[in-house]
């Protein structure tokens, strides 16, 4: 079974313009607090006053305690890889990670792989999905210590956190 679109030259279709509609959502203001933190090169998390858990990126509710997570904390930008994926070779313009094209951004060369990782930053109880940058795919492992890599100029966007790199 093919996994990619270009391997499916034919599918069921009807030529023409079709109205498919569009959705909107009400934004969660926590996203604003999170990207505002990124602009200052800080990782903001939410703290539950019920169980003391810290969630990064912040979440509004604690499901365990069924209450709002009212606390805010800044966690360390150093953390631990809890799991990872090694991608197939990446083509320019094929994927966007946190709104950016990793080839376009110069994070990798065309046909190199990317390594999406979950990182538990020190002080957090949750994982944040991001990219492992500047690491040999052979050296990545669960438990690897990493540090946040910030964009040269931060703008208050998710891509301000470009990824993490091995802590050496």
């Amino acid at each position, binding site marked *: 079974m093919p996994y990619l679109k270009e391997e499916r030259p034919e599918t069921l279709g009807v030529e023409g313009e079709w109205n498919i*509609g569009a*959705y*909107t*959502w*009400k*934004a*969660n203001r926590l996203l604003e607090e999170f990207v505002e933190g990124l602009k200052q090169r800080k990782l903001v998390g939410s703290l539950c006053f019920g169980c003391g858990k810290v969630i990064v990126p912040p979440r*509004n*509710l*604690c*499901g*365990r305690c*069924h209450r*709002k997570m009212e606390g805010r904390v800044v966690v360390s930008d150093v953390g631990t890889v809890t799991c990872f994926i090694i991608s197939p070779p990446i083509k320019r313009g094929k994927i966007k990670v946190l709104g950016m094209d990793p080839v376009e951004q110069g994070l990798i060369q065309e046909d190199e792989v990317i390594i999406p990782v979950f990182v538990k930053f020190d002080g957090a109880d949750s994982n944040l999905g991001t990219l492992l940058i500047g690491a040999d795919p052979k050296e990545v492992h669960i438990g690897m210590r990493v540090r946040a890599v910030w964009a040269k100029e931060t703008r208050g966007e998710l891509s301000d956190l470009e990824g993490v790199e091995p802590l050496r």
Partner: protein
Amino acid sequence: MRRVAIVGYAQTQHQFDMQKTREDMVFEVVKEALSHAGITRGEVDTVVTASTDFLDGRTISSVFLSMAVGAYLKDESKTEEDGTSAAWYAFMRILSGVHDVALVEAHTQGSTFNPHQVSFYTLDPLFDRQIGVLNDVSAAAIQARMYMSSYGVSEEEIAMVSVKNLSNAAKNPFAQRRMPDLTVEEVLGSKLYYHPIRELMMSPISDGACALVLASEEKAKEITDTPVWIEGVGVCQDFYLRDRNLLELDSLRKAAKDAYEMAGIRDPYAELDVFEVSEKFAHEELMIYEALGLCRRGKGKVLLERGATEKGGEIPVNPSGGALAADPVCATGLVRMVEAAKQIRGEAGEYQIPGVRRALAHGQFGMCAQKNWVFILGGEG
């Protein structure tokens, strides 16, 4: 068979463009329902929600609300369509004997995605969607025209439904449209959509949520001194738009018949004290009177003209204002259950009907009320 009761409930103040995320809205209404019942999340055995992925704009949308609704690491399931379907399912889960306490929740934020556009997606994609102008409003207009010409009903008579319900809603703090001094002329002067359907003859676009707590007899008696018993339920759905006689609400007639039979009701006019129905369009309320067996076919307008369905009438219908006053789509039928329960418990404040022992709540979903749920609720005694 086990008996099941409503032991707690809450609803939001329904409004257009609520300044809350869906998650916060649901969290708050669930917290309030649990606190109204006087129980904690820990005492809930199963959680059943209702919404549609189309309206929520995500697939398997309940996953994203599991924490808000208090379902974290709990038995949880979601029904589609109206909240009365979730109540019906939760009722059966308790009847099964496996669960004793169920939390039911339903919601829609119509301001984030026009529900009338969603109605377009419920149409057959290859033929009916391509007509372009077919949607729930134009389908309702087709139905209203059939009804008017078959039974000699005027636009004024249909507008009187809006006047009754929206002025009733003036006393309901949860309603969106509260219009104490509304006149037939104002209804007929409101914006025309598909003739004869005008803005004040159709339900508004609302953001809102509703939650209720159901419990088995034993548990219900522990939780409250004033349980509201589910005495009867009926559910029925009709053919799709094109195959159906739009002049009739046959599926509602059948659902009501089943619910009456289960509750041992032979004469609904005499035996029920108040009705909370989901009239998404004003003309539907007249058709609902007929399908519920309150009058003969085509005579709905006579009940209205006689004032029988007014708050002070013999069979008050929608003292809360009904769906015309607020329509948070999937929550609308569940709100009717809450309003009926409030009437039985004497908690309806300024729109309380005196001496309510038994009430009917109705939910619907689909074009021209394609699917219907009827609940008969009763107090102790």
